[in-house]
């Protein structure tokens, strides 16, 4: 008999707030976290807006985690801060953590270009880089391995039940929570910390995304730039952040009288196997992901009360996702709120699914649905209730949360009210 699994701790660092309270308050108020890029001089780039994390003192995180001192990557510090919040919120003992699972989703680890440009004129670039860097002339690692966050968190808190570093692109944040749920359900552990972190707000990351033509170039109206499901949407907005949740078997949570935000009841994943650059126009991968999550939860489509959409604001995603939701949920799709957190946070890439899982758990816990902002006139093919008129109260019991990754990886979680 599979075990029941509940969410008992939350942590988030995002462009709309770097605490759970600030994040939630911003979502409910419909505040956008998008603005001009300040992290570097983006003046020469076609895209000059993003969702930057503004209210987290990285120095404070670095002081709390001196073992991260060598890291240059913002996303490591985001993760450490968000994970610490979640563990603090869950109020677990060290004994709980020693046998626990740790699942961390991460994005790309890009080179810092300024390490390499000094060699631009070298006729034998490869040798020049190898010899000068290997001799320690840069004095800092060219790249931080993607498992560094997992290693630091694992060592600090003593996670020895299994450490997983997932790099499933935009689906990573949802996958890590789903994989942790699966393992707790199977009885492989009683407790897990799962979440994801990302920041591609660097020249190479922003440049790479710009080339893909999926970003909104509305540099003069940043807070309006991300408009999921709106007829005039022009693309998504890159952002950054991290989010973590603690998952426990229900028995474990009850035994220690833990606060329960929501029960996680279903997880599904799928692959489009279509193209690396586009979602499958038929949305079958997304339908499969949602259908598998429903089956795992033992729920019918008519038992889903809210959808936390992937909702990126790209021309293709929103139409395909709307069609997929309608196919997966049938007529129920028209009766329930479907909202897009990314309209406010921007696209936190690998971290987005984890942040949206936090939002889904809070939707249930706080009985409120955040809005999708910036919808003036919905796309004709986007004909669901996108909560365009502001946050509203929520009396339902279940929230389905979608993440669809670059490359065709899809993942869905289903949360249910506990108690």
């Amino acid at each position, binding site marked *: 008999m599979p075990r029941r699994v509940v969410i008992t701790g939350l942590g988030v660092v995002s462009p709309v707030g770097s605490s759970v309270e600030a994040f939630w308050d911003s979502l409910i108020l419909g505040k956008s976290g998008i603005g001009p890029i300040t992290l570097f001089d983006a003046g020469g780039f076609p895209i000059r807006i993003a969702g930057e994390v503004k209210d987290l003192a990285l120095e404070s995180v670095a002081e709390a985690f001196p073992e991260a001192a060598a890291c240059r990557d913002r996303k490591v510090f985001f993760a450490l801060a968000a994970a610490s919040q979640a563990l603090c919120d869950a109020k677990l003992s060290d004994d709980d953590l020693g046998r626990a699972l740790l699942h961390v989703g991460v994005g790309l680890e890009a080179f810092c270009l300024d390490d390499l440009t000094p060699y631009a004129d070298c006729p034998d670039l490869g040798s020049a880089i*190898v010899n*000068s860097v290997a*001799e320690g002339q840069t004095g800092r690692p060219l790249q931080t391995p993607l498992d560094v966050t997992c290693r630091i968190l694992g060592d600090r808190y003593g996670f020895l039940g299994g450490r997983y570093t997932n790099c499933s692109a935009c689906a990573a944040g949802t996958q890590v929570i789903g994989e942790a749920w699966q393992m707790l359900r199977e009885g492989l552990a009683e407790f897990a910390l799962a979440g994801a972190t990302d920041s591609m707000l660097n020249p190479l990351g922003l440049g790479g995304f710009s*080339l893909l033509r999926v970003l909104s170039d509305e540099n003069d109206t940043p807070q309006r730039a991300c408009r999921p499901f709106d007829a005039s949407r022009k693309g998504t907005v890159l952002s950054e952040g991290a989010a973590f949740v603690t998952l426990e078997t229900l028995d474990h949570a009850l035994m220690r009288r833990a606060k329960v935000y929501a029960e996680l009841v279903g997880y599904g994943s799928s692959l489009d196997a279509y193209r690396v650059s586009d979602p499958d126009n038929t949305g079958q991968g997304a339908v499969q992901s949602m259908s598998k999550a429903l089956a795992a939860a033992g729920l019918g489509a008519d038992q889903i009360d809210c959808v936390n959409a992937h909702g990126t604001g790209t021309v293709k995603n929103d139409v395909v996702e709307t069609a997929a939701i309608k196919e997966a949920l049938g007529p129920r799709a028209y009766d329930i709120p479907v909202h897009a957190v990314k309209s406010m946070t921007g696209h936190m890439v690998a971290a987005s699914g984890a942040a949206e899982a936090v939002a889904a758990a809070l939707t249930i816990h706080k009985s409120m649905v955040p809005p999708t902002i910036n919808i003036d006139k919905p796309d004709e093919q986007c004909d669901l209730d996108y909560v365009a008129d502001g946050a509203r109260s929520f009396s339902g019991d279940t929230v389905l949360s979608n993440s669809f990754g670059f490359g065709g990886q899809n993942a869905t979680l289903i949360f249910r009210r506990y108690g």
Partner: protein
Amino acid sequence: MTRSVVVTGVGLVTPLGQSAGEILDRIAAGNTAASKIPYDAGALLCPYYAPVSRFDPDAFFPENKTLRLMNRDAQMAVVAAHIAMEDAGVRADHTYPSEQIALYGSTGVSNMAVEEMSRIIEYAAADDGSLDLRRFGQIALKRVRPVMSFRILANMPICFVSIFENIRGQNAVYTPWEGQGAQAIASGIRAIQRGDVPCALVGSCDVKTRELSLVNLQQLGVFSSWEHHGRGCIPAEGAGFLVLEDQQKAAERGKRAYARIADYAIRSTESSGDLKSTLTSVMLSLQRTSYGAVIAGGDGDAAIDGSERQAFEQAGVNAVEFLRPKSHVGNLFAAAAPVQVALAAELVSHRNAGRPVLANCFGFGTEQASFLLETPCRGES
């Protein structure tokens, strides 16, 4: 009751060969794939690497333009995955519905080739060699191929495998060390054991022979054994994939399996923890000490090899034969685990008189794993 999982397909692209049998033959003959790094890399502590020579993805996928979007990691992954699927006789939507085949993979850090990086930095550098962001945004970006992102995102090799093999089932991609490759295999095993899917393609790829990869490894201390002991791991490149199936389903379609995965164990170790204790714990948890053969994790790194030797003693592991493939193939890092398990499967199937084989996936990173492979029970698969 959980389902029994068997290996029915193996696909390898390694510096020492493209089949488990070929690799074992060459190991037995004392061959090694290592060669001296052919360019001026005097500052590297490790003087050798193990590239795959004569790798030709076009031979497997003629006139497939998608290959041009892919980096070498991904090209190796799609070739190895294709060999494994053909070996198993599994075709998506023929043998099993495409959404009923899971895909779990792992990848290393996706480093750019220097030639590609040079296109970017040439136009991003100011006259004094500093980074000029205006030039980067206004000039360099226009000269970079839009496919750059497809080459550097770490999940892409596995996504390309899904596209090439039309696999649409449950999935995850892990990174970046051998232990994460083992986790991918374990995830496939569990998916079948739970009854989620009858079949899973699991595997990994990694290319650690490029200039930037070598620098990265040195900065991470991976070559420190060379400095202190005059020997160490030899960075390699390649990919390995396994087709895992529900034993009963494989038997129903008349497919002979290489081996049954009787058990596995994965343990985490703290970065500064006692590796020997972790390795001992991993092997002890398999509750067997006597094997026909052991595929050792050892790859030349003095500390890791020493810990494994001590762990063998502490766990009381004995075997007719101990093989150390990485000292011949090189260290495939993220891609090492499926190669280790593939060699174990070949031994069980063809060379080991049916005795069980232990495949250790030990090395850098915090996760250490062992797999126990046996002959499938008579009358089954």
